């Protein structure tokens, strides 16, 4: 049982239909004799009604198929399977590492500290395996430099590789430990791919002397300039890769 006159909390509970019948009647009797409080309560009730009315439309939007529970269940199942798969890969890696001992250890140490490893990973993910879709694709009169300038306006210009038959075709933004990165993919007529990769040097301001290294079947040219680090990644066996090495414009 609430006490009279009702507290503000009781009045809210009245508005929200959260009082028992006895209390509700008490409040109603009180309000009948207190026009000022009654007006206040009415205003709250009206606000609530208007809010309900204004928001009722939002319940009748077309359904979004992406949100269907059955689909989400499927997606979750696939994810679990993928996690199990990567756990298996990890186990194999540990097994192999155990067998080949120091050699494997040194290999991982080297690759972890090698410059612009992320650029090569990005090339594998985007250009080779096509796992990540492009954010931007060059149409007939598209402007790749314009796209890149939206994010890296102060950075070095995109190199012109048209002599070797390579044109920029698509771009993708990535986030790395060192900060936001962008990768532009060049392609020639026969579908060979070269990537241009730019990102901040990272918190330790790790600027790079001009250099080149290969990792597996890929080769990376890297350098720093205008406050960013860059890499150009291509398959080592590509004739154009040799030309990249010799070009001094970067």
């Amino acid at each position: 049982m609430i006490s009279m006159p009702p507290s503000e909390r009781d009045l809210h509970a009245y508005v929200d239909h959260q009082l028992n019948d006895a209390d509700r009647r008490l409040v109603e009797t009180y309000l009948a004799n207190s026009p000022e409080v009654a007006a206040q309560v009415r205003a709250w009730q009206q606000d609530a009604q208007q809010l309900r009315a204004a928001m009722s439309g939002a319940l009748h939007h077309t359904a979004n198929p992406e949100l269907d529970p059955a689909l989400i269940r499927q997606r979750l199942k696939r994810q679990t399977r993928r996690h199990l798969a990567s756990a298996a890969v990890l186990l194999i890696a540990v097994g192999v590492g155990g067998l080949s001992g120091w050699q494997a250890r040194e290999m991982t140490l080297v690759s972890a500290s090698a410059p612009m490893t992320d650029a090569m990973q990005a090339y594998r993910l985007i250009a080779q395996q096509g796992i990540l879709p492009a954010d931007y694709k060059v149409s007939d009169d598209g402007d790749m430099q314009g796209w890149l300038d939206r994010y890296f306006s102060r950075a070095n210009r995109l190199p012109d590789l048209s002599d070797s038959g390579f044109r920029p075709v698509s771009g993708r933004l990535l986030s790395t430990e060192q900060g936001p990165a962008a990768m532009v993919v060049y392609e020639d007529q026969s579908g060979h791919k070269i990537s241009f990769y730019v990102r901040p040097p990272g918190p330790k301001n790790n600027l790079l002397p001009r250099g080149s290294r290969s990792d597996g079947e890929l080769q990376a040219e890297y350098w720093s300039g205008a406050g960013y680090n860059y890499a150009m990644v291509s398959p080592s066996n590509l004739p154009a890769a040799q030309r990249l090495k010799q070009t001094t414009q970067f």
Partner: protein
Amino acid sequence: MNEIDEQLREIIPRLRRFAVSLTRNPSSADDLVQSSLERALSSWGDKRPEGDLRAWLFSILYRQFLDAHRRSRRYARMLEFFTGRDDAQPSVERTVMAQSTLQAFDQLSTEQRALLLWVSVEGLSYKEVAVILDVPTGTVMSRLSRARQALRQLSDGEITSPSLRILK
């Protein structure tokens, strides 16, 4: 499984509405609903409490929103860098006179919007809201009271922009 999905399908429009009221943006609202459903379905067996399914889902969505909001504030600078503009935060111009209840509602704080939607629109009990926010029922009531007063003031246009005041 199918019975649960049916229940979920009925609640999804309500989740989307709640998400829009939090994010003020339909597409990020749907992202929020999706990640909340993923969270709910993957922790169904061990975490799902007895009681109103809707209230439980609201609480998951609300927490995810707060987490994302915190993260997005932390990464607001990076976002701004990526998109060229800062769309993680709603407009700071909150002094415009409210003309309708919905406009007034949009100017309330995140928690006040959630409270009013749960109680006034969805009709959740104070107790259910107390569980979602993890505070005592009394606290829910006083916060609700403050939210209502704020909505009232904004709807009445009592809070006007400074420039209007100067012009008077």
